[in-house]
């Protein structure tokens, strides 16, 4: 009994990330079956903000390519890049900012067929009952506002900080940050649950299931940031041809899906 307790305690120290779903993302795993020449599995790492759109795109792609299974790995772009650079067997990488694609290109295995496939804008969200009475971006800098943004390094986090700079409220806004979320979807959760007074996320993150829990506060165009999303085939990919086909698909038929979800064209 006691030995079990020691083991439990030390294991809990050794595995601090235990309990969260991997590096802040969810793996949309469909059953991959082995064998058969038609069966291929494509691994795509995509920024968290692409979760819904890519989910649909993946299903459609599988429909057009029978025998192919697309496995997604969603998470913060910085974490995904680090994984790839560390040798994770990813075929396609779709990032929420050029920075992390550059990282894979320069510090990692390198990429090919790189293209920008979408753009996105950011917005402020507040819980439906708006406890802090936020009406515009300036209010975010008011005393006592509980603000949640993504961590530095995560594109959404960097963009948020850039926006505060543009608005000239950096100091006050950053002082209001009560938590640096591991990715942009976690920001959405914090606000939707009512724990945070406000958060900075992509407009596309206000999806159907969240829309009745939050209110969007528009960020004026002159201070807003337009995020550019690059996609590429990772060198050393296992399924290079298939990866290319997927990238083409995203740049082709996928564009409509992205538009439906609120993304801007590249």
């Amino acid at each position, binding site marked *: *009994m*006691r*030995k079990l*307790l*020691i*083991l*439990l*305690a*030390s*294991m*809990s*120290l*050794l*595995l*601090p*990330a*235990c*309990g*969260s*779903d991997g*590096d*802040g993302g969810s793996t949309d795993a469909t059953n991959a079956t082995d064998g058969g020449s038609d069966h291929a599995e494509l691994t795509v790492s995509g920024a968290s903000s692409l979760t819904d759109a890519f989910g649909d795109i993946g299903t459609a792609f599988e429909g057009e390519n029978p025998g192919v299974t697309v496995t997604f790995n969603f998470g*913060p772009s*910085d*974490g995904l890049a*680090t994984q790839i650079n*560390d040798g994770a067997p990813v075929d396609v990488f779709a990032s929420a900012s050029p920075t992390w694609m550059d990282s894979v290109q320069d510090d990692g295995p390198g990429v090919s067929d790189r293209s920008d496939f979408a753009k996105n804008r950011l917005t402020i969200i507040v819980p439906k009952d708006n*406890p802090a009475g936020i009406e515009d971006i300036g209010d975010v800098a008011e005393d006592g506002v*509980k603000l*949640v943004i993504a*961590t530095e*390094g*995560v594109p959404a986090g960097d963009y948020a900080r850039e926006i505060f700079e543009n608005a000239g409220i950096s100091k006050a806004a950053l002082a209001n*940050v*009560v*938590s*640096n*979320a*591991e990715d942009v979807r976690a920001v959405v959760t*914090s606000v939707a*649950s*009512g*724990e*945070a007074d406000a958060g900075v996320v992509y407009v596309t993150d206000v999806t159907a299931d969240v829309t009745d829990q939050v209110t969007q506060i528009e960020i004026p165009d002159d201070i807003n940031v337009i995020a550019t999303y690059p996609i590429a085939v990772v060198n050393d990919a296992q399924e290079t041809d298939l990866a290319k086909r997927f990238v083409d698909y995203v740049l082709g038929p996928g564009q409509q899906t992205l538009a439906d979800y609120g993304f801007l064209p590249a």
Partner: protein
Amino acid sequence: MLLVGLPLLGLIFRTPWARIGEVLTSDTVLTALRLSLLVATSAAAISFVLGFPLAWMLVRSTFPGKTFVRALVVLPLVMPPVVAGVGLSAAFGRRGIVGSWLYDWFGIQLTFTTGAAVLAATFVSFPLAVLALEAGLRGLDERLEDAASTLGASRWYVMRRVTLPLMAPQIAAALVLSWARALGEFGATITFAGNLQGRTQTLPLAVFERLQTDQDAAFAISMLLIAIAFAVIIGLRGRFLR
């Protein structure tokens, strides 16, 4: 053995020993370390203070619903930490059953505070304290307490001079185990308390954050946690070989 040993070996292998000094003395890490020590110690202390009376009741008295209470106590141990975090939010978050009352009446919100980190750590380490203290109480010969009372000792005196001293090793085990578990807590903390340097970013959260951008640093901080874990294990071994 391999199961526990390999990750450790992997870490030792990948740790940037050359950089380790620089990483561990950086502002982020020192802040996280200080916070972790504060949170873990508070959690262990609270777990003991709340856990001792509970362990006493579970061992010494009968009351209706005892089996239920015992199951409840063990629950955090088998609950995935993130679920524990969600549960804590549901109870103590701004819209939580207790939290909403705190907010409406006192304007207090627990989420995103150091207190929340302590609460999360206490929640997961409390069962360990109770179990260790229970074991200690069970192993006690109650007749010694009877003998003490025939010698004129009040209940409180008996507790102080007989019960607690005889349980000293188990009390130490309870404190150390709950402290170690609290130190390593991640899922409940990040879900309920959030992640902010200096306020809620404990060492495990710092590891996690670093992991996204600077794996080497993550390894280095992990080694620190390992070192602490070993110190705990070695310290405990002495107790159990008694």
